[in-house]
């Protein structure tokens, strides 16, 4: 049963280059996907691929230019301010940089209690009880109650941000690179905490990251994004180990493996991501793709089932055969 359904979602940002030239950036372009209740759905891609924009559009923190987002059967894009606020109680977000996403002038008690004071109208003593319970859930001692974000470590700040997100008992969390600014040993603590909370509270996660090793460890399904498009989607191991889209394969082969006995088999991709102002015609990856042919410039590939994943590539079948051979 899908909790989230995204249908043909597009977000266009107007932009200005220099004094007079104006342009449009299609940050997310025609994305459709479903997230099942209780699963961890991974969204991977490099900077500028549109993963954060998509995450924010799903929460309606950004208004999609077109397309629809259903949450538990309710079309969020059709809601007005008050109804949307009510829906927001059921979905929350944790950002990448915990220090920047916590108000430096508020102590931990105020930060974590603010959602329940505002949304649930709890009085101070009720709110305080709720805060203590939440701190226990995220593994923080009560000594931090009076402390300010700058007095806490990165890992502690991220625990506070998670406690704040969980305060109003949401069902769905968008986790936008929640461990990217943390060291590996602290990342392990936060990842373990998120897994445990998911089990205990029956949460559904949209986990946004550029870290393929992390997503292969914790996600159930994954979508790979490139320049605003989903290029491949499916079960996490199907995509990351057997995926056939040339970009998925290049991305996977570019990730350094922490095992010196594994020989490198890099699939080199040329150059860098083209300007989002004038994306290539047809398939957006064609300018860097070793398999690109004339058809790729003329015709945009759509997602279709090939082997075990959904792939947007004209030549997915022949690539899949070539890889096996």
């Amino acid at each position, binding site marked *: 049963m899908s909790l989230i359904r995204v249908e043909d979602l597009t977000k266009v940002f107007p932009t200005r280059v220099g004094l007079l030239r104006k342009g449009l950036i299609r940050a997310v372009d025609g994305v459709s996907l479903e997230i099942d209740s209780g699963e961890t759905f991974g969204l991977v891609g490099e900077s500028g691929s549109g993963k954060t924009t998509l995450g924010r559009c799903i929460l309606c923190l950004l208004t999609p230019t077109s397309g629809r987002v259903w949450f538990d059967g309710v079309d969020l894009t059709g809601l007005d301010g008050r109804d949307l606020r009510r829906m927001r109680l059921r979905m929350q977000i944790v950002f990448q940089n915990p220090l920047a996403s916590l108000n430096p002038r508020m102590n931990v008690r105020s930060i974590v209690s603010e959602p329940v004071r505002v949304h649930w109208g709890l009085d101070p003593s009720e709110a305080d009880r709720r805060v203590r319970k939440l701190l226990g859930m995220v593994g923080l001692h009560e000594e931090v109650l009076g402390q300010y974000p700058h007095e806490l470590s990165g890992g502690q700040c991220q625990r506070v941000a998670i406690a704040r997100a969980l305060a109003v008992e949401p069902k769905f969390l968008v986790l936008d690179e929640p461990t990217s600014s943390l*060291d*590996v040993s602290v*990342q*392990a603590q936060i990842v373990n905490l998120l897994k445990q909370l998911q089990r205990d509270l029956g949460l559904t996660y949209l986990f946004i990251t550029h870290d393929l090793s992390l997503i292969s460890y914790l996600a159930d399904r994954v979508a790979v994004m490139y320049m605003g498009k989903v290029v491949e989607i499916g079960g996490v191991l199907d995509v990351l180990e057997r995926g056939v889209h040339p970009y998925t394969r290049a991305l996977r082969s570019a990730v350094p493996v922490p*095992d010196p006995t594994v020989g490198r088999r*890099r699939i080199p991709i040329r150059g860098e991501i083209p300007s989002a102002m004038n994306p290539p015609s047809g398939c957006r990856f064609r300018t860097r793709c070793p398999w690109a042919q004339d058809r790729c410039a003329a015709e945009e590939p759509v997602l279709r089932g090939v082997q075990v994943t959904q792939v947007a590539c004209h030549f997915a079948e022949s690539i899949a055969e070539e890889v096996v051979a």
Partner: protein
Amino acid sequence: MTHLLEMRDLTLDFETEDGVAKVLDRVSFDIAEGEVFGLVGETGCGKTVTALAILRLLPRTALIRGGAIRFAGENLLAKSDGEMARLRGSRMTMVFQDPATSLNPTFPIGDQVARVLTVHEGLDRDEALARAAELFGRVGLPDAGGLLRRYPHELSGGMQQRVMIAMALACRPKLLIADEPTTAVDVTLQAQILDLLLTLKAEFGLSVLLITHNFGIVAETCDRVGVMYAGTMAEVGRTSDVFREPLHPYTQSLMRALPRTGARGRPLQSIPGMVPSLLVPPTGCRFHPRCEFAMKTCAARRPELLEHRPGHRAACLLYEGVRE
């Protein structure tokens, strides 16, 4: 094997408003000619300070308490500022994490690379620009001629990092220090830049000190590796040895904290507690408060970085025959 760089027991403090921080405590390692040596560890463990100490670019608040740094047989700590200035940028150079802030935004990139050559090798401007154009070709920058007149902001992050590498290699250095050179870029670009570094290392006969927090990068690019913890060197050895059989409990824990497919369904190992304050570092072994194997002696006695397997050193009392 001849050592290009030898660091012996480097110990240094930082004076801070809150007191004296014991930032490095008897850090030792060697880098051989033509070798890529990786320095890994978590934030604040002293990787960057170690690199800055080699270049003598430490802030004024840093006080070197002891130890030696020898580069090509010469003691760097005994050199005058002028002698160091001549070495830096010519025989030993550095590439930083964020190329956007390392390049001067007000000069064309060609001039910035050429300046290294006019200062260190006494070339005139035209000769230097011609050499810069040639270097741009070597580091894979397209349209090398026209690119010389571009400003840093006109280039992508990957191209900026290539310019930094061209600048670092301009005078054919012996040692290149790369401090998290790919942390600010995406993985596909990271792969390109690491491949480029390895190619250039072979072409120029460089030794590279690669600072990173990414064990994957170490596994793929480094011949040997040093693992640092809270200002101390926990373990040094060939990359293959350290990954196959990590000796120090800290290294072991870090390896098990890495998320990977094979660990699905099981919790990741995390290290209990937090990195200690260097103002009052733990006595004895600095890792002992977080170590699952800690003994009573560990709080009292500081372990030496000793060779416990051929070419594989670790600073841990478990290997010194201490049993409780």
